[in-house]
């Protein structure tokens, strides 16, 4: 459908290092993906797999001075942002690419009204008179379906519920019509019904505006609902990437398979839930070969010594995975 459209954000071989007491570690190691307008990419992985650092790298806001983007390229709307000036970055942040954080309870400044905070975010990127700004703020609140926005602009954050606050955070992020939205687990702090409403809201706004969303989560249910593409991260690398349907129905990487096996199913009556043995490797003690090899049931001798290249599915649906197991199949080695 929209497959012909050029990607709005394209990330190539991104590498972010963090200096630790144990020496420098690669928190993001050669991550590549791209998202088209109106599409949603889900980035899934366990805690510490590098999802959040990847997101912060896209905004060039990795925690300084310990972390640093060391190589790669991020092209946002035709512009390389890794070489952009700091002043230009401030225009880009919130202007072209926005982010919604996890916890709505603390994402709003407690001493200012909702209205002034939405206005502030818009005013950073748009020059307009105070009255116009107020109108735009009310418009933005209306768009995220805050009831009675004209009255609500006077409210302080503590007068709102968690779900409402997260909507306001959404209004702030979307206030200046960005092209890409990064949502870092925006619904984990909300209860399920509110979560469902919020996801639907994001989906609706996306259909309206053609927003590209990068959705960071560890919830496969949310992925199934929201995403078109999925990238599975493990220990700083993307191990499998592809259309959401293929990932769910025909996962190629043992890690993805294991993850999907650990999700409880409604249909089957499982006595004991599958869990992946062992723990993710420490970043300062990475295996030389495949990073999942110590926990993998199908590990071969080769996995211990050499990192597998990326193989692409013969179906031509851009379904890729890095696993030696695929060497002997019809999957072909690909660049990304």
């Amino acid at each position, binding site marked *: 459908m929209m497959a012909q459209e050029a990607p709005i954000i394209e990330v190539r071989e991104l590498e972010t290092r963090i200096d630790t007491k144990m020496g420098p570690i690669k928190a993001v190691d050669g991550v590549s993906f791209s998202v088209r307008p109106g599409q949603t990419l889900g980035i899934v992985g366990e805690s510490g797999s590098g999802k959040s650092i990847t997101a912060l790298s896209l905004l060039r806001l990795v925690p300084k001075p310990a972390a640093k983007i060391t190589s790669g390229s991020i092209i946002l709307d035709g512009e390389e942002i890794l070489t952009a000036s700091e002043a230009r970055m*401030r225009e880009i*942040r919130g202007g072209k690419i926005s982010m919604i*954080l996890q916890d709505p309870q603390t994402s709003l400044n407690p*001493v200012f009204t909702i209205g002034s905070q939405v206005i502030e975010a818009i005013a*950073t990127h748009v020059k307009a008179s105070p009255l116009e700004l107020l109108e735009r703020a009310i418009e933005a609140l209306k768009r995220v379906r805050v009831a009675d926005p004209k009255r609500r602009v006077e409210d*302080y954050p503590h007068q709102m519920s968690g779900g409402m606050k997260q909507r306001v955070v959404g209004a702030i992020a979307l206030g200046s019509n960005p092209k890409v939205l990064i949502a870092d687990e925006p619904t984990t702090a909300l209860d399920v019904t509110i979560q469902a409403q919020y996801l639907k809201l994001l989906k609706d706004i996306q259909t309206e505006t053609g927003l590209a969303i990068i959705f960071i989560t560890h919830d496969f249910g949310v992925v199934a609902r929201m995403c078109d593409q999925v990238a599975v991260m493990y220990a700083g690398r993307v191990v499998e990437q592809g259309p959401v349907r293929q990932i769910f129905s025909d996962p190629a990487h043992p890690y993805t398979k294991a993850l999907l096996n650990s999700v409880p199913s409604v249909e089957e009556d499982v006595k004991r839930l599958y869990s992946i043995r062992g723990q993710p490797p420490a970043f300062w003690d990475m295996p030389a070969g495949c990073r999942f090899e110590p926990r993998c049931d199908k590990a071969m001798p080769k996995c211990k010594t050499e990192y597998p290249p990326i193989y692409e599915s013969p179906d031509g649906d851009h379904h890729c995975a890095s696993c030696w197991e695929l060497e002997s199949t019809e999957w072909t080695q690909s660049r990304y």
Partner: protein
Amino acid sequence: MTDISPRTSEHTFGQKMFDLSRSLRSLPIVPIFILVFLLILPAVTADLIAPHDPIRGRIPDRLAPPVFFGGSWEYPLGTDRLGRDVLSRIMHGAKVSLSVSIVGIIFGGVLGTVLGLVAGYFRGWADAIIMRLVDITMALPSILLALVLAVSVGPSFQTVIIVVTFVLWALYARQVRGEVLSIRERDFVARARVSGASHLRIIFRHILPNAANTIIVLATLQVGSVILLEAGLSFLGVGIPKPTPAWGLMVADGRQLIVSAWWIAFFPGLAITLTVLALNLLGDWMRDKLDPKMKDL
């Protein structure tokens, strides 16, 4: 007796206490303003309303007691050793003491707040340098510094301001830095950064307003100690030069005669107490008003 009745009475008692505390919280504001007004009015209009010359006294009238302790209405609060009217001196002294503390607190407060914000927000070497300066300042006795300054430039109003600023900035810097360290980690700061706010904007729009409560409370609490510091400096002869009326100086002067002529030290002391009390209450009231969460109570 059912098991509910004691709880019900407890509840109503608690409710009463809550109502009481709520009315107490809203009550003091009128007296506070009257008190603050009573302090500022004589300080500003001392030249017009003071009944006597604060510096030149009448020796024959020396050590006259206050009006209800055997004195006359001529000297309502009595006179000191040189026959100077205590009331007039308190009025003129208000001007000196209040301006020393207000100017000193503003200078020290602004300097300390800015440095504290820089240290807490940027961390790194700026933080290290500023905090070591704070340590040095706090380790250095203020009286020693005052003595050095007074010897080199002579005791004056400016000297006192410099000493007060020097003593206060470190307290602010340390307090503000601590606040900033916790505020900068909150998500709304990250959110502001994500939506393209500059460092200056984050510091002044998102961090400073959240630290304002602490700063205001600190400022009002310090008026008392600044007046006492001024008194200490004056007592050593390195503060406000002597004939000028200042509250601390007056307390120091009256100290020797506290048994025979208690009013010389008592009334300026009372003025200090009331000032500190009024400003503390004002600070509390402002803190409540500035916190949006207290508005609905």
